[in-house]
């Protein structure tokens, strides 16, 4: 019990003191996960919107695949990206393996299906409501995509937050493709895993507290956005 409270006190000290190593780890975590969300959004949002409005053979299979990929285990995602980026892999010449770039790529691959699947769910219900009116205005499915993305802006921000939450909390993918190299590819989750196994509880706890604060912040933001969405959705 004393160990635990001592660890908490030390963790608070680390955070309050602005320990540069801790700040570096937090900064890299945010940079990697935010970059991954941006990249995944550039693919996932338009893809989800397209799936919401377009009807083509294989659409059902694609939706099932995306929904299944929402549950893709991060370690498996990390393994796949590792194979792609390893020296002998198809993208090995990029030299990305064990760099933050590889971690961004792995998290983007991990959450792009989540963003696409959730976007599809949100926008398909909008499209059911809008389709006839938009056709009356002379707008077909293609023109509807930007309209739906804009009208779904609040709901889609919560989708992005869900993606960010998933990315910042995962450990398996960044561990495999980043390698947890101190000062270079060490992020909060990999540091917690390592420090806990080494027995350095204060650092692990400090990072854990920051991670929890981020998760709380994300959820609070999502809650606020839901309020705004309801206001505009009426």
């Amino acid at each position, binding site marked *: 019990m004393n160990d635990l409270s001592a660890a908490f006190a030390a963790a608070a000290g680390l955070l309050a003191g602005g320990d540069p190593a801790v700040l570096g780890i937090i900064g890299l975590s945010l940079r990697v996960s935010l970059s991954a969300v941006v990249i995944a959004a550039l693919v996932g949002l338009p893809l989800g919107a397209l799936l919401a409005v377009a009807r083509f053979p294989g659409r059902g299979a694609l939706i099932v695949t995306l929904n299944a990929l929402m549950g893709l285990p991060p370690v498996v995602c990390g393994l796949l990206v590792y194979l792609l980026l390893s020296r002998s892999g198809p993208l090995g010449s990029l030299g990305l393996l064990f760099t933050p770039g590889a971690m961004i790529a792995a998290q983007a691959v991990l959450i792009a299906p989540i963003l696409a699947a959730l976007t599809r769910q949100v926008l398909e219900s909008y499209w059911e409501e*809008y389709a006839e009116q938009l056709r009356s*205005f*002379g707008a077909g499915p293609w023109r509807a995509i930007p*309209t739906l993305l804009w*009208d779904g802006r609040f709901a889609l921000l919560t989708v992005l937050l869900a993606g960010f939450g998933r990315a910042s909390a995962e450990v398996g993918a960044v561990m495999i493709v980043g390698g947890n190299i101190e000062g270079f590819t060490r992020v909060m989750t990999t540091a917690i895993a390592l420090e806990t196994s080494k027995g350095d509880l204060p650092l692990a706890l400090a990072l854990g507290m920051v991670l929890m604060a981020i998760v709380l912040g994300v959820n609070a933001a999502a809650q606020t956005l839901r309020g705004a969405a309801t*206001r*505009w959705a*009426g």
Partner: protein
Amino acid sequence: MRAPDTILPLTTEALGFAHGGQPILHDVSLTIEAGPPSVIIGPNGAGKSVLLRLLHGLLAPSAGRIHWSGIADPRPRQAMVFQRPVLLRRSVLANTTYPLGLAGLARGERDARARAALELVGLAALADRPARTLSVGEQQRLALGRAAALRPEILFLDEPCASLDPAATQAVEAIIAQLSAAGTKIVMTTHDLAQARRLAGEALFLHRGRLLEQSPAAQFFAHPATPEAAAFLAGALVW
């Protein structure tokens, strides 16, 4: 009188529509001329809404054809307001400018036209409100104003007052009358006979998917030519 490039009259020849093997409309031949509102009446399930959607081009007929006059593309000359208004998750003004943007109007003109249309439907003061927070009556007026901003030659209205209280109905009817007086051809469905009497220039009576009568409103309401129409008018009056 009429603009030389008018798309009216609108005629249909033996128009039919079936859905999933279920016939909904048969052999509807009609002519819609410019002038006072044409009101399509008939019992529930007669095919009124389907007929409007066919005329507006939202559904493809399974038999017969629809013919617009003139050489102009009829699509951008028509607009439709649905029974339940479909409003975008945007402000009242943005809802009104949206179809104008699709129609290719320059930004400045969109705004001016939209504001004029909102003035017409009495929503100018609410221009910046989220559209979906309006009351049901205001939403229907916004849908009307949004359609009117397109300055259509013909405006289809599907039961525009179906879910409105008497005051809101009165407001919507006043807008319809004003649009009609300004030269917009109104083609609307209603199951409200009193409303049909107030608005109709001519009446089209649909019964079980067939057009049984098309005649000037005064004549139709005084002397319906078919027993079905007489029964419908009598039943509705008793009720």
